[in-house]
């Protein structure tokens, strides 16, 4: 008790602890500000379009730069349909690959293929677009389309969905390219989720005589359902907002129609293509901003959904 209090220098002008606390807080605040600014600027940018067109912005199907009349239906529909096709193709692909990598493949194969899949997830999206133009578009135009046109033309319902001029670009093409783009990402997340199932559970099931597929379906999938859905929703978010991969292969025609093989456009591709030719302050620019705002809402909603299903961070 004889220890005297440590003498502090009386001229302690600068408290580094407080300084650094506020410095780090400032960094966090700037991140917050960025998203706030993003949403506010999109909303104000699209305000002109929202007020000018009112409800007709959402219930007409025109996108007519000549008459300066715009509506969000055609690009939104394109975005939703192409993302849906992508999900329908990518989910089984990702699930199967993850099942293979975690439960079937030998450790060495699993390591090599797992790395390859993760590398594929890192390839820039513009590359997928160019690859799509070079491989998927000719395949659809020369093989798939003539086949459908020949066999399915007179089938009701399906015929109108699957037939059309064999140009090769369109919703189906962009759906395939998007699927290839999001499947590796979803596979990687699913592998993580499957790997987090306690080994004891699986071993007990194997011990009771279950087959690999039964362990997958009755132990691993129920255990990791939330994580899987989270992965799917995150993949959906990427498919909804993807620009470059889609712009190359969608054909960019703003109409609404039944065929999955006719050229269409998505929100992101429309913004990428028409933004440069829209003069500042024009109603067209504002409509594109409004589209961007709606896309942002989609993206936020899918993220909230993913987090909700995952139950917070991993």
């Amino acid at each position, binding site marked *: 008790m004889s220890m005297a209090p440590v003498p502090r220098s009386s001229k302690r002008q600068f408290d*580094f*602890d407080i300084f*650094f*606390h506020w*410095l*780090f807080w*400032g*960094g*966090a605040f700037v*991140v917050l500000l*960025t*998203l706030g*600014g993003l949403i506010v600027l*999109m909303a104000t940018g699209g305000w002109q379009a929202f007020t000018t067109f009112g409800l007709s912005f959402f219930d007409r199907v025109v996108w007519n730069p000549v008459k300066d009349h715009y509506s969000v239906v055609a690009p939104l529909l394109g975005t939703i349909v192409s993302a849906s096709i992508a999900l329908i193709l990518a989910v089984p*692909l*990702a*699930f*199967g*690959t993850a*099942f*293979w990598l975690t439960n*079937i493949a030998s450790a060495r194969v699993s390591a090599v*293929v797992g790395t*390859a*899949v*993760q*590398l*594929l997830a*890192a*390839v*820039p*999206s*513009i*590359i997928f677009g*160019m*690859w799509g133009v*070079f*491989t998927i578009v000719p395949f659809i135009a020369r093989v798939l389309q003539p086949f459908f046109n020949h066999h399915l033309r007179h089938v009701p319902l399906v015929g109108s969905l699957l037939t059309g001029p064999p140009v090769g670009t369109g919703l189906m093409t962009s759906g395939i390219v998007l699927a290839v783009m999001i499947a*590796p990402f979803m596979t990687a997340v699913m592998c993580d989720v499957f790997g987090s199932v306690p080994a004891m559970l699986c071993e007990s099931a194997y011990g009771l005589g279950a*087959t*690999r597929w*039964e362990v*997958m379906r009755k132990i691993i999938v129920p255990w990791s359902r939330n994580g899987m859905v989270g992965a799917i929703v*995150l993949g959906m*978010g990427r498919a909804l*907002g*993807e*620009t*470059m991969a889609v712009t*190359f292969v969608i054909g960019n025609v703003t109409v609404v129609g039944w065929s999955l093989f006719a050229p269409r456009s998505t929100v*992101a591709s429309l*913004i*990428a293509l028409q*933004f*440069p030719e829209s003069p500042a302050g024009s109603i067209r620019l504002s409509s594109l*901003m409004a589209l*961007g705002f709606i896309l942002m809402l989609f*993206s936020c909603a899918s*993220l909230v959904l993913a*987090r909700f299903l995952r139950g917070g961070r991993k």
Partner: protein
Amino acid sequence: MSKSSQAAPERLARWRPDRRMNRRRHMDRLATWMSVVAGAVLVVVLLSILWTLLSRGLVGISWATLTHGMGPPGSGGGLGNAILGSIIQTSVALLIAVPLGLSCGIYLAEYGRKTNYFADVVRFVSDVLMSAPSILIGLFVYQLVVVPWGHFSGWAGSVALAVLAVPVIVRTTEDMLRLVPTAMREAGAALGAPRWRVILSLCLRSARQGVLTGILLALARVGGETAPLLFTSLGNQTWSSNLNKPMASLPIAIYQYAGASYDDWVQLAWTGALLITFGVLLINIAVRLSARR
């Protein structure tokens, strides 16, 4: 399991082991095959992308491609100015993003424990930014920088790339700092180090490998981005290192050239695509190798 044991007597009477076992075995085999096929499809796609890039792009790699600027078709132009522009813009973007992302990540990990609602909100916002469509980042920076300044510029492009890089850095920094054991912080505090000293000299230092990984991953993500640059740095046909002017970049050059009807431009687009993909993949492989060590 319990259900089957309760109903055991009737079930045993009807139980035909062969047929049932066979069905289960076939189901298992079917599932196995389907999953192998799914895996094979992904691998084939990866190989197909690599093959397409190599077979179309490798032809065009030469000293002239790397050093000459872009030019009119048929004039022997290269991608030199685009490569330079890409390097300048990603470097500036990282210079903006690294301090910001680091400080935000440190805040979330060190001050944002449990009951800090502000930190929860920031964490969520950072995740939203990470998954926001990159073209919207481009629109945002257009409104934020290009409209007030009145012209496209390399600065705007850098800011857009920085907005994309920050959430990646935030996420990895926070995760890595959380792996630092509490005992380390307590030891530092016991030695009399103030909190900032503990954070910077102990926690950040012991997590530096992971933090560096995060920065590299951010670089890999940003390096191949096209959409956010479309409305911000616009692209430029001539050599320019002036950040106040529109600036060329490799992804934009690829985008402009890929749809061109001149063979040598298309060739340049594929060469650029090859360069950018292998750049990005190299960074990723380096990260992986260093993480394994």
